[in-house]
């Protein structure tokens, strides 16, 4: 099956290494995909709060483009790796499916640019595609470096599995843990998988955002995680780039790698850290690098 890939804005800038690593992994696993032509911003959560109708209109434009681009395919599956994009697209689809009036409005807006939306698109998270379509057994088969002894804290953030995702449990998600096991590493049992990292508040009201990130990092370190993996560009940014700031505020010496799940998977598949965009990290996940033995891993 061929997938459509919808990067969203983050994966082209702050979350660049997410795109680099995810696409490298998809290629390594021979998962066929093509980028959505002429995509636009999903509107993120901010626009949704300002003007719902317009937010739905811009989000649905991506869905309409997908239907247009894949009109000859049997099924239209669009991969949205950024958790905000994933959630906004799901929310838009769900809302339009249940509100005929809004749907009519959106249709007329789309018509202006020669598009239409029928609701045929299936919005997929890359985790869902990897775990459920490609399969964990196949992933294990493709692993070149079993990450033995590495303790991984899977962190989903608020939006990956909530509120609309159906591929995992909203309160106790396990798909990342299963992936971690599939590549030979050990998932850390911890209760903060879906706790908020502070999101955009960290950038706006630091005294609200920072403690939230601190709680997550502190607990992950306390449970002896070697690395935190995440599926959200904003979570990765908050948890990694603010560690100095957090240490300054809470008199702590936290230093824990926060990487994308696709980077960890990529390392296990034998992809070089550079191809996975890991040279962009501020906190090097030393423990993980050490575990990757015997391959042609280039240390960065």
């Amino acid at each position: 099956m061929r997938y459509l890939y919808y990067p969203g804005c983050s994966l082209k800038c702050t979350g660049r290494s997410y795109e680099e690593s995810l696409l490298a992994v998809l290629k390594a696993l021979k998962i066929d995909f093509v980028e959505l032509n002429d995509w636009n911003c999903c509107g993120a959560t901010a626009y949704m709060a300002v003007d719902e109708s317009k937010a739905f209109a811009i989000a649905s434009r991506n869905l309409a483009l997908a239907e247009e681009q894949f009109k000859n395919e049997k099924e239209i599956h669009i991969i949205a790796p950024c958790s905000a994009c994933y959630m906004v697209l799901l929310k838009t689809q769900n809302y339009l499916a249940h509100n005929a009036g809004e749907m009519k409005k959106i249709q007329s807006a789309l018509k202006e640019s020669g598009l239409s939306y029928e609701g045929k698109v299936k919005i997929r998270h890359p985790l869902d595609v990897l775990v459920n379509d490609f399969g964990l057994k196949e992933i294990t088969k493709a692993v070149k470096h079993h990450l033995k002894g590495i303790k991984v804290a899977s962190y989903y953030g608020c939006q990956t599995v909530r509120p609309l995702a159906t591929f995992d449990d909203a309160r106790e998600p396990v798909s990342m843990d299963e992936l971690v096991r599939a590549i030979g590493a050990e998932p850390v049992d911890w209760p903060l998988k879906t706790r908020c990292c502070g999101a955009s508040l960290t950038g706006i009201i630091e005294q609200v955002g920072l403690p939230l990130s601190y709680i997550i990092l502190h607990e992950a370190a306390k449970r002896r995680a070697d690395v935190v993996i995440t599926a959200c560009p904003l979570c990765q940014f908050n948890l990694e780039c603010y560690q100095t700031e957090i240490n300054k505020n809470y008199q702590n010496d936290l230093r824990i790698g926060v990487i994308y799940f696709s980077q960890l998977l990529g390392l296990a598949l034998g992809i070089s850290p550079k191809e996975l965009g890991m040279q962009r990290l501020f906190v090097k996940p030393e423990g993980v690098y050490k575990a990757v033995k015997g391959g042609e891993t280039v240390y960065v």
Partner: protein
Amino acid sequence: MYSTNGNNIPRIGFYICHCGHNIASIVDVVEVQKYAATLPGVTVSRDYKYMCSDPGQELIQQDIKEHNLNRIVVASCSPLLHEHTFRLAAEKAGLNPYYFHMVNVRENVSWVHDNKEQATEKAKDLARAAIKRVFFHKPLEKKTVQIKPDVLIVGGGIAGIHSALTIANAGKHVYLVEREPTIGGHMAMFDKTFPTLDCAACILTPKMSAVKSHPNITLWTYSEVEKIDGFVGNYKATIKRKPRYVNEELCVGCLDCIEACIYKEAKYPDEFNLGLSKRKPIYIPFPQATPQVVLFDPETCIDFKSHRCKKTCIEACERNAIDLKQTAKFEEIEVGTVIISTGFKTYDPKLSPQYGYGKLPNVYTSLEIERLVNASGPTAGEVVTRDGKKPESVGIIHCVGSRDEKSNKWCSRVCCMYSLKLAHLIKEHTGAEVYNFYIDMRTPGKGYEEFYDKFMNEGVHFIRGRVAEVTDWALVPEEENKLTIRVEDTLIGVVRRIPVDMVVLSVGLEPREDASEIRRMFNISCSSEGFFLERHPKLAPVNTFTDGIFIAGACQGPKDIPDTVAQAGAAAEALSLISAGKIELEPNTAQVIEKYCSGCKSCIPLCPYTAISFKEDIKKAYINEALCKGCGTCVAACPSGSITQNMFEDEQIFSEIEGLLKFAGIELEEKEVEHA
């Protein structure tokens, strides 16, 4: 073409009811009455304030006699309410009751429309359809069947026990079938009962032994209903008695065999204590188990696995009661009625992972705590955490698996009260601070609100809010090595974190996992959440839609002990049926016209009441009229049109349709009424 009751020409009496203002405020009843009078066959047409009243009924009877009426049509409310009333009135006046037909102009017209003119037109149309229909009505006779006097009760919890004793005391014989090795159900597991705080065992065990010793009760524990066929008054059931590997007649419950078991230590999870203690492969569920008979668990007994045990248990048994070769026994019984009292199961809190059950060791279910506080429980009544410590603070979380869109939407009705009870007992046993986290306190019962008041004064804390999570990560040093309950306290409007040593999840009540198999076996219905459906929520709460099958207790919906015992009044319904000795069946049944039946058997699997069988000798289908409920499925499905149904014959329905079609502007050619 149509038959009459001695009178060749149909002489129809038409009556329309005002039902006070219920009908008359929307339907112009006088106009309908005048219109009906103009229709062919109508001899008398009247409107009256309350047709169901005694004078209303007398009006019909008088007209039957004076005007020699042979058909009656009443336009009033739903046939469910008063069809029986009017049939009886017609019968008293000497007319066959099935010459009567009812038109519903209340639920179907006045209550659902607000345009007076159109409603009146609709009432006229329905009246016309009925008047055309009764031309073809036939006199029918009710069938009478004898009722077998014995009763089968399925499930030996407090509902089954109470029903069994009531019926047995009335002198009728009861077969009480219980799946577990002992009767007593959930109530036997409880420590004390609200609101009186009397000990559950003290009030239950005398009833359990009364069941065992009652001459009118046959008690089969560790048994299940394998099969049931038949119909009201005449059910045949097969009961499977699972092997205990111990002869029930010989065992006296001395428990010497358990002592003698080759396993010196008990090492298998004890079901009765929910795995909080251990038992041996030979065991008795609890000290007051009824019957006092031990049983083997073949899954864990060495001899069943390897045949290499020294069988010290057999040596120890002086009465030679142990029989390791025992096999399942099947008993065939005939009963007139059945009471189903299969109870409930508690919600599995693993389905609400935010509360950590199964992951955080000191999170318990309320039922586990019932065992912990019980003097005969796994810790002899000492409330301790899994690491053996006495808790200093305990949180009780209400509505786990109740009032929750993600699990069960319904209120389980008993949790507020049992949570109060457990709060009190935990406080009494440990002196711990106890926090109750509730959404709403629901204490509507005799003495229940007073019970709530009492424990508020005792110093139990009440925090209003649905708990977000129970977690073991610490934000502050006080939370280290504790379970932290995170909750929005909606009364003060803040999010609170409360560290405790022990968490109790007040789990809700659900239908048993095999409720739908029981439903199919006994041919009863379930409501959407899976509890058995009563015939009427107010007026027939223990009846089902299958005659002769009654339900009692929590299998019908969450109930506390007083309500369960009250509902075990299903026994009274069963008794009244048995005492009548016979029952009349409605004649709205289907019959096979043998000369047309091709023997294709397509009707047989369709019948939801298994009323159709196949006569091999003549290769024709046969409908047992006692089983037929008149649903009409077979009539519609028969490819050769060889099944007819009383009161729904083709000509009756077609003429009714003709009457209605006029409403849609279609006027059929008026058929010449054959006054033969």
